[in-house]
């Protein structure tokens, strides 16, 4: 089976600081891949490298066998990589519906001039974007809020909306940056089930950064552990649980406190 997303020997330096050094991760199609590691291990940097916000200093990033390192973020998104952000980044002044429509719009193909003078193709496209976006909101429990300002939603709903928005891109890989941050145990369990459902329903490969071990161990097929920008372990949840280096990276830090 070929890997959907391959990160090969990637290094990212900011000035003298090496945020990621010689990191390699392979995400298989259909898998759910967890990325864990202590704070500051470079997990979010890795996401930013994949989605084109940063360019790798060295190394290659391949998506479906095609090199995407150095492409602009918009291009990478259109190739089928959706993401959420650690600190939620919704368009706060827009409605919930319009937030989803923005991502859906990449599937509308009408030219500027058709929009400006309202030729039929733009109207049909707009109607499709409304219908499909509303349909997408329903299973997320957001339909009733479709016309609320996104910034006014409660925190949990904002997290869900971010996922819905990323799915509107119809991505083949969805990168989730700490989806369970700020949730309590019950909510985290619900999220686990929800992500399981998303994975099946939208046929999407999930890559997630998470600190809730329970969620990661339950959901992931494979886990990569980062520490100080380096891959220190890679394997199935069982292997990771038994790996002495991982235990040291986590517990070693805990001992100091």
């Amino acid at each position: 089976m070929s890997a959907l997303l391959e990160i090969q020997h990637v290094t990212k330096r900011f000035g003298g600081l090496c945020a990621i050094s010689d990191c390699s991760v392979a995400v298989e199609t259909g898998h759910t891949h967890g990325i864990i590691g202590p704070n500051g291990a470079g997990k979010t940097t890795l996401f930013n490298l994949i989605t084109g916000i940063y360019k790798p200093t060295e190394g290659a990033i391949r998506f479906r066998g095609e090199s995407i390192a150095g492409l602009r973020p918009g291009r990478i998104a259109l190739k089928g990589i959706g993401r959420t952000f650690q600190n939620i980044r919704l368009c706060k002044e827009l409605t919930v519906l319009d937030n989803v429509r923005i991502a859906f719009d990449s599937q509308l193909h009408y030219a500027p001039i058709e929009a400006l003078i309202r030729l039929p193709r733009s109207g049909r496209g707009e109607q499709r974007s409304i219908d499909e976006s509303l349909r997408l909101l329903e299973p997320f429990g957001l339909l009733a809020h479709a016309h609320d300002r996104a910034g006014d939603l409660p925190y949990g709903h904002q997290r869900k909306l971010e996922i819905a928005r990323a799915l509107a891109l119809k991505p083949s890989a969805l990168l989730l940056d700490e989806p369970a941050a700020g949730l309590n145990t019950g909510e985290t369990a619900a999220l686990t089930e929800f992500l399981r459902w998303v994975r099946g329903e939208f046929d999407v490969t999930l890559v997630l950064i998470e600190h809730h071990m329970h969620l990661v161990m339950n959901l992931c097929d494979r886990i990569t552990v980062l520490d100080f920008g380096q891959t220190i372990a890679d394997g199935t949840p069982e292997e990771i649980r038994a790996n002495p280096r991982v235990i040291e990276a986590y517990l070693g830090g805990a001992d100091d406190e």
Partner: protein
Amino acid sequence: MILAAAAASSAFSGWAFYLAQQSINALQLGSIYALIALGYSMVYGVLTMINFAHGDLFMLGAFACLLIAAFLPLPFVVILLLVILLIGLLGALIERVAYRPLRGGPRVSAIITALGCGLVIENLTLVNFPYAQRMPALFTSTSYQVAGLTISTLQLLIIGISVALMLGLDFFIYKTRYGIAMRAIAFDARTVPLMGVPADRIISLTFLIGAGLGGAAGMLYGLAYPVIAPSMGVLVGWKAFIAAVIGGIGSVRGAVLGGFILGGVEIMVVAFLPSTYRDLISYSLLLVILIFKPYGLLGRAPNQKV
């Protein structure tokens, strides 16, 4: 044959003298631009905000000098210090009243407010001085002939004061506690105040110094080109803004560099081309530099946290 060579050589030396003479003028204009540009750059460095009102504070410096000289027969140095103090306080006051309430809000609001404040200052001056004013000569300037070049005490004084102020500022920013705090805030405006640096006071101080230098520049400009009008805030002040951008806005040394470059370019344009091309060439130079060095000659691209 020999005659032709002699003629050519004298033509060449005439041309060289002309160039040298213009270089002195360029140094004078450049030092004034640099002084004003410092104010733009310091404020941008600390608040990442374009203080569009700064050019008008420069203009007020000239008018403040005019008014003080008209009513109080004070020595030159005292007038200069008074102008620096007055305009500096006004700059800090504008920051306190108009900019501070908007801090943390959309950045566009702050720029618009600054633009509005500048126009209010300009047009309030225009209401009181509808016609261009003649600046009194504060002392009698004598001209010296050095190697065939003419240089006046006024020119020497303008260049000398400007350079002294710039060196003083450089010392202040790199060597004193307040200067270091200022650079720290410019580096990271969110974290540094948490470490006990009194951000509000440092920002007020930045405006005080920046506006004060602008006021001094206004006074020197008025002495060098003694017809002053409210429109010079836009006509000259915004040129200095270009200088700051060319040098790399936010960079203090860049502002000085940009000031001298722009002064040089403008004087040479006027010396060799119709003088009406000056604005056209200055602003085009700005665009060209932004294409090749988007953050100016000594500026750095801002870091962005995701």
